[in-house]
């Protein structure tokens, strides 16, 4: 069996004030460094937000944004391949629910060959084990570094 840590992916999280142009500044920096964004989401609160993204080179993205003065951190997430058809999300959510794994937040994207669900969970190892045990497919971290 493959090592579970193989499926723990580094997401970058960036603190941003909630005002026009901040996302453009982040995106421009990544474009200049030729860093590709696979998926991203914005979580917003009153006056500020956190931009979360899966990129092809998290280390370089972290360095670039930090140099620009942004506050950046890495967060461990997992990415599950879903069937892109009715019931796809249900399967994954049910496995995690049955295992007592809580989802802190999540976002999804439609990849080239499947829909992908990005998950921040409270017990990553448990989640990986259960998903693999149910024949589910996880994206490996090698795609993102």
């Amino acid at each position, binding site marked *: 069996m493959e090592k579970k840590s193989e499926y723990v992916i580094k997401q970058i999280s960036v*603190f941003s004030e909630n005002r026009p142009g901040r996302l453009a500044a982040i995106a421009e920096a990544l474009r200049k460094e030729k860093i590709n964004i696979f998926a991203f989401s914005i979580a917003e609160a009153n006056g500020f937000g956190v931009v979360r993204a899966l990129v092809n080179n998290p280390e370089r993205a972290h360095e670039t944004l930090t140099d620009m003065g942004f506050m950046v951190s890495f967060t461990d997430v997992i990415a599950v391949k879903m069937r892109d058809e009715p019931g796809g999300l249900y399967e994954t959510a049910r496995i995690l629910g049955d295992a007592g794994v809580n989802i802190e937040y999540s976002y999804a994207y439609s990849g080239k060959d499947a829909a992908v669900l990005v998950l921040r969970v409270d017990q990553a190892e448990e989640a990986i084990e259960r998903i693999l045990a149910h024949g589910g497919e996880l994206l490996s971290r090698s795609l993102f570094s």
Partner: protein
Amino acid sequence: MRTWDPRIEEMPQDELKKLQYRLLKTLVYRLYSFSPFYHDRMRDEGVHPDDIKSLEDARKLPFMTKRDLRDNYPDRIFTASRDELVRYHVSSGTTGKPTVVGYTSHDLDLWTTSLARSLTACGLGRGDVIQVSYGYGLFTGGLGLHYGAERIGATVVPTSVGNTERQIELMQDLGVTAIACTPSYLIHIGEVAEKMGVSLRNDTDLRVGILGAEPWSAQMRDRIANQLGIRAYDIYGTSELSGPMFCECSEQQGIHIWGDIALTEIVDPDSGEPLESGEKGELVFTILQKEALPMIRYRTGDITSLEVATCACGRTHPRIGRIQGRVDDMLIIRGINVFPSQIEHALLTIPEVGQHFQIVVDRKGALDTLLVRVEVGRDAFSDKITDLMSIKETVAHRLKNTLNVNVGVELVEPGSLPRFEGKAKRVIDRRVL
């Protein structure tokens, strides 16, 4: 050298009081006789020099304020003729018309002597290399410290303000041991050095900071001392007195005010009544020996307290506490007095946020609102919104407890708030009254 002039600095207090009384008496007679401005002021108040029979009688004399200098711009209340003046300094005038201070060569000597004593009290002297990063020019900070440092035999690096990267290079190359600047500028230097990969603690000989020209807190001192590995001394002065003049000694239990140079009082900012030793109020100075622009009972607008007991260092002269704020910086929010320094103190107790902040005062309908913008500390950044929200709530809660006013809090990106190289301007008042 431990003490610049032990004969004066360790003079028994009763002798010091006698000396102050003699100097005050001479000053009052001189002004009554030769200054039309102060003569009229005393006459209007019904005070004659003969009424000054003890040092305590100083409180019978009328106050002077910055307004007197403004109203008599540029030099109408000077008591020296123009050809006796050797220098002018001009205050920035951010709060109104600028004020001009003139100096005879005796006045400059007095100023420099005061600083020689003060810098010696901070443990500086021959062999030290002092970087003067206060502005040189019309502002008193740069030139004042410059001559004070030269007087004690230290080597001066007159960098003035700005070009921070160069300042850091010089600090390393010339073996700078002390820096004189505003506390917020030193924090800025520390931040820039870190970006350059220079540790002020490990890569320089810096051991002393002479910091002033803006109010700062004890917590900020600890933070500077811990981060930069130096001893940070508080220095005080205003251009109306000459410039920066008085410093803490190595005991760091207040700023020594040389009694032969200045007579210090603390008064109630509203009534003008003198307050007891230890009570907090407005700082009032009489400069006892100045020729060109003597100041009698000058109301500085600075809030602090006075300690008259002899210091553990052996100096007998009175000390003032940390400047807590300014009478005119005081914000009145829904009838409650708020000092920006209180906000600074409160923020320094919260490690998750930075030390820079901005206060925005506005009025919604009839209600004043107070918004504090503060930077999230890099170490505290969490990907979780709930963590960030809880930082925000902690700040709001702490400020509410300190100020007794509801405060809005805005978390902003680190490095995004303005840094100040001169006096910090942290309040934006949008109220249209």
